């Protein structure tokens, strides 16, 4: 039991019926939350039509979507306000009060999909900022562009983008997102990767191990 892999959530067998029931509810709760949890995608595009389209494509694939019209709004949504001091302050959401009204830091983002060509901050600039952030560098980033420029594509992929989609984006492109989201998901199950308050209470392996250890004693 001590070498219990946190990402697998197996169902251990228990001799006693009372402890079994306790664990079963716990395990079901964990699995229930894991299966009900919808991936949340943050979409960034200055074009109203493209935002509408990408939102529809993502919702059709059962993702929860937040769409913003600029890189700076995306950073604001994440709680990364273009300055390192803000990142220090915002990087530990556990300190946010539970009844904080609409504090966006509480909302986990599992993937960012962004247009390349935007006024002000480009999608590439946004990619760099995300990858340079200690709190958010593990969020997969996908870039979209209407222009097929190999050097642009290569630069984005080299600097950490998971995929590069040519516009107009199709449902078949959106289907390619799932493996990146699943990969991010299993990382979340491991310690010290994502410190989100709600998730931590359920998915923290220490907490899980403690429950099973208590039951073992019984």
């Amino acid at each position, binding site marked *: 039991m001590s070498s219990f892999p946190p990402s697998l959530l197996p169902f251990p067998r228990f001799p006693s019926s009372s402890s079994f029931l306790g664990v079963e509810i716990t395990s079901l709760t964990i699995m229930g939350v894991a299966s009900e949890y919808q991936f949340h995608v943050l979409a960034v595009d200055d074009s*109203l039509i493209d935002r*509408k*389209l990408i939102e529809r494509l993502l919702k059709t694939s059962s993702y929860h979507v937040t769409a913003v019209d600029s890189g700076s709004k995306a950073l604001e949504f994440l709680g990364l306000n273009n300055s390192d001091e803000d990142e220090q302050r915002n990087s530990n959401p556990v300190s946010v009060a539970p009844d904080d009204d609409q504090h966006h830091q509480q909302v986990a983002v599992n993937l960012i999909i962004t247009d390349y060509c935007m006024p002000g901050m480009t999608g590439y600039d946004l990619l760099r900022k995300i990858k340079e952030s200690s709190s958010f560098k593990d969020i997969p980033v996908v870039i979209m562009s209407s222009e097929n420029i190999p050097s642009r594509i290569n630069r984005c992929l080299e600097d950490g983008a998971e995929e590069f989609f040519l516009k107009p984006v199709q449902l078949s492109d959106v289907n390619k997102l799932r493996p990146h989201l699943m990969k991010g998901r299993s990382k979340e199950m491991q310690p010290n990767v994502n410190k989100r308050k709600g998730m931590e209470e359920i998915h923290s392996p220490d907490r899980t191990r403690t429950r099973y250890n208590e039951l073992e004693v019984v």
Partner: protein
Amino acid sequence: MSPMALAALQTQLKNFVQSMFDKGVLDSQFGQIQALQDSSNPNFVDEVITLFCSDAERIITELNRYLGYQNVDLSKLDSYVHQLKGSSSSIGAHRLKLACVNLRQASDDRNKEGCARALNLITSEYCLLRSKFQTLIQLERSIIALETNQQ
């Protein structure tokens, strides 16, 4: 309300869209947009068309205004043309997209007269598209009205 009336309208819509495909006014991307419409989003096509038209009109008006000036910096057109080309591509407005490519080329060539001609083409392609979209939207809405009555 006969189901035949509904079927007739649906066929009419299908044929109408097909004729737009045949003329190159629309391309397969429009089909992708239609495929995203379902019972949970019954007005999706309508909404996208409406958004597109208001965006396109804003840009085309601005382009026409700008090219009307004496001394124009043609590179200032680029961002507008890029937006219009992007929207056209996203909705499947094939001929309008090509007209944008034309304007971009004329602008790159620093050919002001060429830009004026290209913009005229954009304007006329857009007007044609808008008129067809209006017919399309009317058909969609009539279909939805009939479907609602039959529920």
